[in-house]
């Protein structure tokens, strides 16, 4: 079987998870079964992954459990090719935001179909839950034309294209050339039909800029609307406590706090994680839920072994939709498993200084 045919077959198996989830059916196969096949495919076609497996003494041919496959640190996406296909066949390359050291991580994708299907399925279930589509989708962010390298912008565009009432770019995207169009957003919201809920998609820092610009004024959305907030502040706005920001967003848009839904995703993945507050009356805020084709495992940062239940570790994320790169990614985010999902507890702190040598954390602007 050619690498491309092998990849297509693996994509089809990943999409079968998404189909089953959407239809409320049992998953088509065990998570581990697809995971170990992905590990084998990726070790054959991503040379860095083969080296990592060999160094860690992992024989991918005899793998039985996803958790035994090495996870690739997100930093590797800044240094090396993390894809299992000819670079010329990339249909899109998503880039991470820059750091003090300048390097941006790259996640090329040969085909975004699986990404799009996965995003739509989990977003529909947890952000747009219960809404009768189409609805107006307003993005407090750039359009794909202005930020084609952003996976978040891509996801927003997929949501806007599939869920909205065919709005144009001018009536959908409200950040243009880096400028937040407050007046345009205000006019768009004022013109919404009062009986149809809307969905607002935004980053946390964009929302802080918006709230600062509004200076306490409200921008009421139709009843039943939802607001997605995602990402940290990354120095792009003042920092606001998560609970305070949720309250401010709810008051500004006249929505229930449970309709302000947190999303957690990253360029290196093909799946996202959502708070379930809009879909499940019993769900707690701050608890993120995985779709059945992804797992978040808190691991000990020294041993990389799973932490005991309830203890904090760094997030090892296994994403079966990451077919053509690496399915297991090691982040620098601290997480803890709780009932119903996992909590995000911020980025791992750098080593306390025991000299004047700069810490990696400081170098990357983390402190």
């Amino acid at each position: 079987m050619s690498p491309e045919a092998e990849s297509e077959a693996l994509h089809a198996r990943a999409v079968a998870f998404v189909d089953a989830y959407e239809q409320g059916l049992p998953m088509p196969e065990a998570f581990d079964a697809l995971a170990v096949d992905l590990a084998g495919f990726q070790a054959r076609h991503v040379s860095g992954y083969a080296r990592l497996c060999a160094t860690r003494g992992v024989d991918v041919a005899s793998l039985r459990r996803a958790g035994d496959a090495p996870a690739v640190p997100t930093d590797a996406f800044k240094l090396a090719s993390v894809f299992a296909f000819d670079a010329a066949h990339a249909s899109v390359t998503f880039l991470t935001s820059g750091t003090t050291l300048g390097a941006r991580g790259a996640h090329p994708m040969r085909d975004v179909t699986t990404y799009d299907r996965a995003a739509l399925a989990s977003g529909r279930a947890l952000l747009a839950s219960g809404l009768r589509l189409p609805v107006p989708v307003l993005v407090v962010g750039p359009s794909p034309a202005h930020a084609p390298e952003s996976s978040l912008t891509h996801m927003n565009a997929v949501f806007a294209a599939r869920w909205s009432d065919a709005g144009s770019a001018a009536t959908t995207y409200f950040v243009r050339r880096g400028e937040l169009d407050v007046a345009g957003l205000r006019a768009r919201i004022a013109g919404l039909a009062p009986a149809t809920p809307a969905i607002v998609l935004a980053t946390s820092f964009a929302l802080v800029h918006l709230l600062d610009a509004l200076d306490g004024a409200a921008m009421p959305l139709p009843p039943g609307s939802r607001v997605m907030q995602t990402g940290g502040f990354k120095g792009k706005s003042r920092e606001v406590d998560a609970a305070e920001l949720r309250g401010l967003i709810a008051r500004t848009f006249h929505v229930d706090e449970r309709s302000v839904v947190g999303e957690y995703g990253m360029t290196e993945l093909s799946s996202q994680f959502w708070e379930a507050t809009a879909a499940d009356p019993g769900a707690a805020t701050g608890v993120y839920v995985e779709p059945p084709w992804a797992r978040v495992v808190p691991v000990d940062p020294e041993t990389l072994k799973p932490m005991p239940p309830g203890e904090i570790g760094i997030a090892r994320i296994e994403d079966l939709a990451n077919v053509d790169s690496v399915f297991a990614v090691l982040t620098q985010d601290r997480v803890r498993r709780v009932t119903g999902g996992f909590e995000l507890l911020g980025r791992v702190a750098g080593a306390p200084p025991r000299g004047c040598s700069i810490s990696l954390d400081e170098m990357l602007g983390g402190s």
Partner: protein
Amino acid sequence: MERSADERVRDLRRLLEAARQVYANRSRLVPAIVASTGLSPQGVELGFESLERDAADEDLRSLIQAAGSTRHVHVVLSANVFVAPLRAIALALGAAPRVTVRASPRDPALARALVEAAGDPRITLTVDRDVAATEADVVHVYGRDATIAEVRARVRAGVRVLGHGAGLGAALVTGKAPVGEAARALALDVAVFDQRGCLSPRLVMVVGDQERASEVAERLHAELGELDMRLPRGVLSPEESSESVRWRDTVTFAGALRVGGGHTVGILPGGASLAIPPAGRHVLVVPVRDLAEARRALAVVAPLVVTLGSDDPVAAAAVAPAHARTAELGAMQRPPLDGPVDRRTALDAIAVT
């Protein structure tokens, strides 16, 4: 009345005499320093060799020039490399006839020993952690950027704060360098203070192709392996160990790795983005085609670079950022006592007169 330059030099020479006393009696301090720094006893002994105990008049006059002139300097020390208090106190004493020193609560041994040995009533230790109460007109603070910012926010109006922040060292091995000699010298630069000093090289640029960079990396791995036996690395904190694991997996993915009992050497292909390693005897080796490429490679970390070591001073001068020191390989951790280790702050200090 302001001290003359000669008087200041004499004051500094008395401080160096105190340093010689501390060095002579160092065995009494070793256990405390081992406990506070995590260095091995052999590592502490090696670190003591970097304690300045003498200096040329010319260097001391440069230090005085860099220190500026003021009435009273308050020095806030962090858990720095353990010999750093000598230079910090010297800079303060070069600038002012009155010096107060707040030693790091985590690592106070050497600062206390120096002040006691100096026996100079103008140099006193304080345990007061609140800089708002200091009567000094200038505060020298050593530590992370966040610490420096906290001190700036706390001092009285009109008090000048000079921050001595964190940085890193880099090295350049030119095409004419004998590989064995360069690797031996570099290994020593890496091992001193277990690389926790801002003069320790974490990045080594090798002029030549991948093969030559790999040769340097292999020899460096061998030399560090020899030092692992003779000068064992101390204890890494859990956070340092975590950073090590992450960096090693990243470099394994992107290049190649040589792991020893107490060190790791990574090799990346030319032109790759840099993966600067954590402290704790981790070194990244990359090939560069020529000095121009070395300058470009260094550009992304240039603001953080405190020193550039090289076998060739002319090449080092051509590649180093303007603010950085240059040094011979093997002597990167022993700069002359001619001003702050980190010259990024020296420029600020000159303005305080």
